[in-house]
């Protein structure tokens, strides 16, 4: 482990140096396995939140107080420690320039992690594929990668934010959960036949993917990834 970046009171981004790392595709994840002294093992899957072109491999870990793995990763892991990790993993929820677009990304809570990898990859390769991100967080404080998402620097990326619980006094973005009207306003219209990536807690993904299908998006171009975290 090389470095940590505290994202907010609940989440930390952890950077690793992998010997013999084969490289990865934006959107893939790694499995982290912890082994206790008595041999008990716990394993969790974390999306890679850095781009393939970045110098180090990063994962963003949301601390779950009753978790077996996240309290260790966010609280006890120290620079220089070694971890047992397996990856890169997954070939479905990935984006490459050859997949084309336009691309519609929809994130709930820490579901933005693999989408941040896609956005950073998009910028690193100077892709001209038009990309939009609709990102939901509970508050500005809990929005991951706040600086990157509030000050985008990629001409081919548009970012729309919604803060579902607390909004700053001068907040000009949305202030509710992602719904049908918001998708109509902020997402590529179905006529553009966007390639959609929806990532977040299971209820968030079910709601968004279901609404996209109801709105006439091609189910075959909606890729989903559900996880057990919280916080949209």
């Amino acid at each position, binding site marked *: 482990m090389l470095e940590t970046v505290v994202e907010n009171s609940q989440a930390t981004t952890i950077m690793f140096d992998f010997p013999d790392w084969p490289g990865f595709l934006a959107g893939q994840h790694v499995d982290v396995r912890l082994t206790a002294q008595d041999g008990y093992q716990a394993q969790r899957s974390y999306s890679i939140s850095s781009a393939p072109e970045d110098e180090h491999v990063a994962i963003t870990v949301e601390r779950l107080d009753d978790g077996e793995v996240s309290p260790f990763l966010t609280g006890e892991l120290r620079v220089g420690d070694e971890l047992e990790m397996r990856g890169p993993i*997954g070939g479905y929820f990935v984006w490459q320039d050859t997949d084309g677009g336009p691309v519609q990304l929809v994130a709930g809570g820490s579901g933005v992690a693999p989408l941040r990898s896609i956005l950073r990859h998009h910028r690193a390769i100077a892709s001209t594929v038009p990309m939009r991100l609709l990102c939901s967080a509970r508050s500005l404080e809990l929005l991951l990668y706040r600086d990157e998402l509030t000050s985008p620097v990629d001409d081919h990326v548009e970012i729309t934010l919604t803060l579902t619980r607390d909004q700053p006094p001068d907040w000009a973005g949305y202030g509710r959960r992602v719904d049908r009207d918001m998708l109509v306003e902020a997402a590529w219209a179905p006529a553009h036949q966007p390639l959609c990536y929806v990532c977040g807690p299971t209820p968030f993904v079910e709601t968004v993917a279901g609404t996209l299908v109801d709105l006439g998006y091609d189910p075959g171009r909606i890729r989903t990834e*559900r996880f057990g975290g919280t916080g949209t």
Partner: protein
Amino acid sequence: MDALDGNAIAGTLAEVFGTEMTTAVVSCGACGRTGPMAEVSVYLDGPGVVVRCRSCSNLLVVIVRRRELACVDLTGLASLTIAG
């Protein structure tokens, strides 16, 4: 616990089958729904991996690991197609 999806077991599947499996196409033996492994419902709160059909909840796959042994039950599948 909410159901996850096939992405959550990509590592386990790669270990068992020796290749990337989330893009493999599975057909449900009960209702016939066909789609990528990434889209199936996955439950990890029991002692093993339980995979169910997203349409009809039919039990598709069970994987139980015990030390170095992996027991894989695929009897709920009508077919499993792995991209070459």
